[in-house]
């Protein structure tokens, strides 16, 4: 007992540099060695996702993303921005960007370029529009002005083109169409939208904030003034998961891009949000963050997939297939990319359910956060045990 006491007393006076070392290792090791973990989605994140997704493929709906932060809070906010932009590009949702901070403008460029690399068909001014930096002195005129006419409130985009002449503006006039604003901030997120856009024009507002600020946003969430909330890295990880499970999901044989069906209807690939799907055990295969190289098909799915591929690729795919427990498996790491047409290669990679690193950053980060939180809880418990033992010892003396 005496030994135990001395250990805890010693722990009480532990140099803080040892604590820093343990925290650093707790963060670095899980980042270097990713493992699969499930980030259970919460209603505030699901609500944002569903609202964004309800605009899929619509000419007369758009989302505005406001980057009201600088680089310091990027580790928490950037992954959620990437996830939302990816969602918009996957589901053919018009998206606008602006920043009221000069340091926010390069972050917008970075975020767009990072996602756009994977979507060569997405075009500036057509599928998205970056208004760039708007001086903070113009926040109120801009927020209110967009309620009447977006092209009047922000006459040019970041590239100097007239907003009213951009193809993206077809069907978009004001908040009636651009009916969702998501503001990302490390401080008072959404304040201006809440004060000026929400009461006057009924604009839907959601926020993405750092975890330390999330508690401040709950009063507005509960009243419905915010339709949803992305809370720090956890919110980003949840959103990434939802995009993988629904927006980026493709069944074998389904085209990767939006298309017009035989009846003239615009079909946007991916599937709609459903709580039931989230409960299915199969989704574990969709949310793995470790590298996946095998595309798995049922025999029927493989036939559909083959039919959708160019004829020259079909013999190669037949050769590459392996049958395991009644399913057909193709390992993309054993295929030569140059021998396949780009569309087959892209589709096959999509069907491996492998997620690129930039689209799973938050989930990899959540593993590190998981270990760091556990370490901190252990520290708190050890510190308290030491405190009470020391107190008992002092009282006894």
């Amino acid at each position, binding site marked *: 007992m005496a030994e135990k006491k001395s250990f805890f007393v010693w722990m009480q006076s532990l140099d803080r540099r040892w604590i820093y070392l343990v925290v650093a290792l707790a963060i670095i090791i899980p980042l270097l060695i990713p493992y699969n973990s*499930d980030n259970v989605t919460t209603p505030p994140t699901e609500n944002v996702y569903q609202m964004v997704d309800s605009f899929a493929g619509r000419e007369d709906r758009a989302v505005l993303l406001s980057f009201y932060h600088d680089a310091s809070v990027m580790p928490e906010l950037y992954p959620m921005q990437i996830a939302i932009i990816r969602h918009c590009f996957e589901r053919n949702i018009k998206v606008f960007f602006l920043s009221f901070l000069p340091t926010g403008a390069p972050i917008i460029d970075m975020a767009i370029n990072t996602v756009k690399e994977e979507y060569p068909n997405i075009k500036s001014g057509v599928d998205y529009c970056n208004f760039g930096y708007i001086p903070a*002195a113009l926040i109120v005129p801009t927020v209110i002005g967009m309620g009447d006419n977006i092209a009047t409130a922000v006459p040019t985009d970041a590239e100097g083109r007239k907003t009213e002449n951009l193809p993206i503006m077809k069907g978009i006039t004001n908040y009636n169409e651009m009916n969702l604003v998501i503001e990302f901030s490390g401080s008072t997120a959404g304040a201006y939208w809440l004060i000026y856009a929400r009461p006057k024009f009924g604009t839907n507002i959601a926020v993405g904030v750092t975890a330390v600020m999330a508690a401040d946003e*709950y009063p507005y969430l509960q009243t419905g003034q915010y339709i949803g909330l992305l809370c720090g890295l956890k919110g980003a990880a949840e959103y990434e998961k939802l995009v993988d499970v629904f927006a980026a999901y493709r069944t074998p044989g389904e085209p990767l891009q939006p298309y017009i069906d035989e009846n003239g209807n615009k079909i946007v690939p991916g599937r709609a949000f459903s709580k039931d799907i989230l409960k299915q055990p199969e989704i574990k295969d969709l949310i793995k963050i470790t590298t996946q190289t095998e595309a798995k098909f049922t025999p029927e799915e493989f036939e559909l997939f083959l039919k959708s591929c160019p004829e020259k690729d079909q013999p190669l795919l037949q050769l590459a297939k392996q049958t395991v427990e009644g399913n057909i498996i193709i390992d993309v790491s054993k295929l030569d990319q140059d021998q396949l047409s780009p569309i087959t290669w892209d589709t096959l990679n999509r069907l491996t359910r492998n997620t690129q690193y930039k689209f799973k950053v938050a989930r990899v980060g959540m593993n590190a956060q998981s270990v760091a*939180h556990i370490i901190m*809880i252990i520290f708190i418990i050890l510190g*308290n045990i030491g405190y009470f033992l020391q107190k008992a010892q002092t009282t006894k003396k």
Partner: protein
Amino acid sequence: MKKTVPLLIVIIGGVIWLAWVFVPHRIIQDVFYYDFYLPWARAMAPFAMLLGVISLSMMHYGKIKRRVPKWQYSFFFFAGFIVTSLAGFIGGTQKGGLYMWIFENMQMPMSATMFSLLAFYMASAAYKAFRARSPEATVLLVAAIIVMLAQVPFGVKISKYIPDISQWILDVPNLASKRGILLGVGLGSVATALKIMLGIERSYLGGD
């Protein structure tokens, strides 16, 4: 005169903006706001930026001139300001240019590093100072542990109820206290604004 004019400006400005919020008449909504205020606001915004740059430059110039403690750091301000501005003006702000390179490889990692230090301070503070010294502190400690666990996938593995309990903590006690604070701040702001508009509160003019 020195106090009356600023006082009048504040009172008239305050009344106009109050009217803008509550009066839907064309004169205040269109003539004042769209025809008068908006063009002026747009014209003034760049001057505010210019004012900021001049003020910051003068402050750092003064530090160097007076050789105040740590005056050498002011050179970093000028170096950063001049290099970044030139990179933006000459090479543009798009990807591939020096401006974006500076942002991605210098500003971003440095800012993120500063913010991430918070994790280390929090861990150290949690270990050294987060003690169950009183019943209130114990409640805070238990709530913190539950919310911390619920924030990570590992917490759900321990118990499926942890996220629900955490959500309740955020939705009920947290929300109630936050709303109380917000209402207090809001009422305080209204009272202060009224006092300023009515000329009762004059400390912003300087003196007593």
